[in-house]
């Protein structure tokens, strides 16, 4: 894999660019603007996740069940993309999964506590999209959200949509 700094810097600039574009002209950003930025970033991540998963699973056997897929995301996918595994996976066995990463790669340089907490969601949107895109190409439709309370630890929540 290439130097991880390349993606980290590019991601920082993507987020900054999306927010600047949305703000151009107006003075303040309202919640609607912020929501648009988050969904643009999430959409980009979605397409990246779709492509990534094709590449990552080309040599793997097919998955037994939903839990197997989630374990793949927590171990192989997370390792390839973020260079570590998910620390904790919880599920209610009814389609909802919580993936906890205690040292999320895109948050470690931000802070190790509460500073800049309100800015953290901007840097999680793309990754949520990546997870959703990866799952979608494996055949699972889902809604992925993330929450942070103490950096750099964060939790991704995946809710699989039943037909």
């Amino acid at each position, binding site marked *: 894999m290439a130097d991880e700094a390349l993606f980290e810097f590019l991601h*920082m600039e993507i987020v900054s660019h999306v927010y600047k574009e949305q703000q151009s002209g107006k003075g303040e950003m309202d919640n609607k603007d912020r929501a648009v930025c988050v969904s643009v970033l999430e959409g980009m991540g979605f397409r990246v996740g779709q492509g990534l998963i094709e590449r990552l699973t080309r040599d793997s056997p097919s998955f037994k069940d939903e839990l197997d897929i989630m374990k793949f995301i927590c171990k192989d996918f997370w390792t390839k993309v973020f260079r570590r595994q998910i620390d904790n996976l919880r599920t209610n066995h009814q389609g909802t999964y919580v993936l906890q990463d205690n040292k999320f790669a895109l948050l470690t340089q*931000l*802070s*190790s*506590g509460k500073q800049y907490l309100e800015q953290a969601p901007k840097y999680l949107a793309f990754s949520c999209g990546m997870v959703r895109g990866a799952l979608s190409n494996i055949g699972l439709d889902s809604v992925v959200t993330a929450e942070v309370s103490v950096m750099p630890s964060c939790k991704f929540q995946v809710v699989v949509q039943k037909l």
Partner: protein
Amino acid sequence: MRIIQQEEKMTVHNLYIFDRNGNCLYYNEWNRKKQAGISKEEEYKLMYGMLFSIRSFVSKMSPLDMKDGFLSFQTSKYRLHYYETPTGLKFVMNTDLSVSNARETLQHIYSNLYVEYIVKNPVCVLGNTLDSELFSSRLDAFIRALPYYSPRAA
């Protein structure tokens, strides 16, 4: 007896970080017994102005071809160490006289602390003062862990 006294003297007094335009991005002190008697803004301007003049003086008056230029000066009580990065960032550290060369320390502060926690921090705008608590706490821990740092300097 003498060895203990020597160790007590070893210390880092303070650190300044300036950007290429002369703005002081960061300042912290660990063992400063005497203040300059002027406001912080004036102090930063004085420090930067002095460095600018001394670098130009040193290169003009050098009897040989210059390599690194100005590195440090000392008085009977302290030594000032200077390190400038290729990108124009200036690191200035005052230590006691037992520290002869702090270049590696300053280089470490630049590549492992500044680059990691400021440049790679999406919220930090280059050119602004360094507000990241992560940066200050890591820097503080690093300084206190230096072999030549002693908390109770004479």
